[in-house]
C-alpha cells in the first residue's frame, strides 16, 4: 500500500452456500475493501477483528437477529451488512432496529459494495430493492 492511502476495510462474510464462498472475493475485492474470511456460520468466523461482517441470511437455520447476535458474540459488535434474496419481515426488522444495513442479492455488485461500505461507516444505505418488487 502506498503511503497516505487509507487502510482497506476488512470484510468477513457468513455464507451458507459453500458453492458461492469464492464469489465473495470478486464481489468485495477492490482497493478499498479486502476479504478477511468467509465462513459457513457465525460460529466459524475467525475470532480476530473484522471491520464489517456481511451476512447472507439465506440458507441459515436461525432468524436474522439471532445470527447477528452470534456474530457479535464471536467477533465483537461490528457493523453488519445483511444480504438476502427477499426483503422478509425478519430481515427488515434488523434494519429497523439499526442492527444491519440490508441489501438484496438481486442488486448489482456495485450496490452490494455500497451497502457494505455504508454498514462499515455505520450509516443507513438506501435499500437495494430492484424494480418491479
Amino acid at each position: 500500500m502506498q503511503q497516505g492511502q487509507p487502510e482497506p476495510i476488512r470484510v468477513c462474510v457468513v455464507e451458507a452456500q459453500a458453492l458461492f464462498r469464492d464469489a465473495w472475493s470478486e464481489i468485495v475485492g477492490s482497493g478499498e475493501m479486502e476479504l478477511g474470511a468467509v465462513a459457513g456460520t457465525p460460529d466459524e468466523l475467525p475470532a480476530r477483528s473484522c471491520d464489517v461482517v456481511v451476512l447472507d441470511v439465506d440458507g441459515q437455520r436461525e432468524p436474522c437477529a439471532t445470527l447477528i447476535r452470534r456474530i457479535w458474540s464471536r467477533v465483537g459488535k461490528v457493523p453488519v451488512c445483511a444480504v438476502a434474496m427477499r426483503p422478509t419481515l425478519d430481515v427488515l426488522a434488523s434494519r429497523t432496529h439499526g442492527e444491519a444495513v440490508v441489501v438484496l442479492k438481486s442488486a448489482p455488485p456495485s450496490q452490494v459494495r455500497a451497502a457494505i461500505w455504508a454498514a462499515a461507516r455505520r450509516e443507513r444505505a438506501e435499500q437495494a430493492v430492484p424494480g418491479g418488487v
Partner: protein
Amino acid sequence: MTRVYVVEPQTIFGPEVQRIVGEAGGSVASMSPVLDLDDIIEARPDVVLLDLDYTDYDPAEVLDALREEAPSVRPIVLTSERERGRLDRFRSSGAASVVSKSADDAEVIRELRVILGGGAVWDARVEAA
C-alpha cells in the same frame, strides 16, 4: 461444447456460476434471474442449470413444465435442499442431475464435467439426505 442456460436468481452470484460452467467445459448460452420457459425454448440450450431455491413456483412443477415444453433440454437442479421427499420429487419430475450448493466450487466443477459429458450426478450430500 455443451450450451447451458442458467437460471440464477441471486444476481450477485451470476458471474461465479458463469465461471464454474466455463471451467466445467460448458458455454453459457444465456443467463436469467427468472424462469422464463419461452426464453429457454428460444435459446435451445442442451442443458438448463436451475437454482430452484428461490423460484416463486413449485420447483417440481417447473421441472414438469420443462419436460413437457422442452423435452430435449436436460434440467440440472442446483439446490441447498436436503429434504428427501422433495429431492425424490425433483428426480421423478425429470431432473437429469441434482447438484448441491453445499459442495464447494471445485467439487461442483467436477460434477458438472460429468453432467455436461452426458452423465448424471446425484450429489453425495443429496443422496445422504
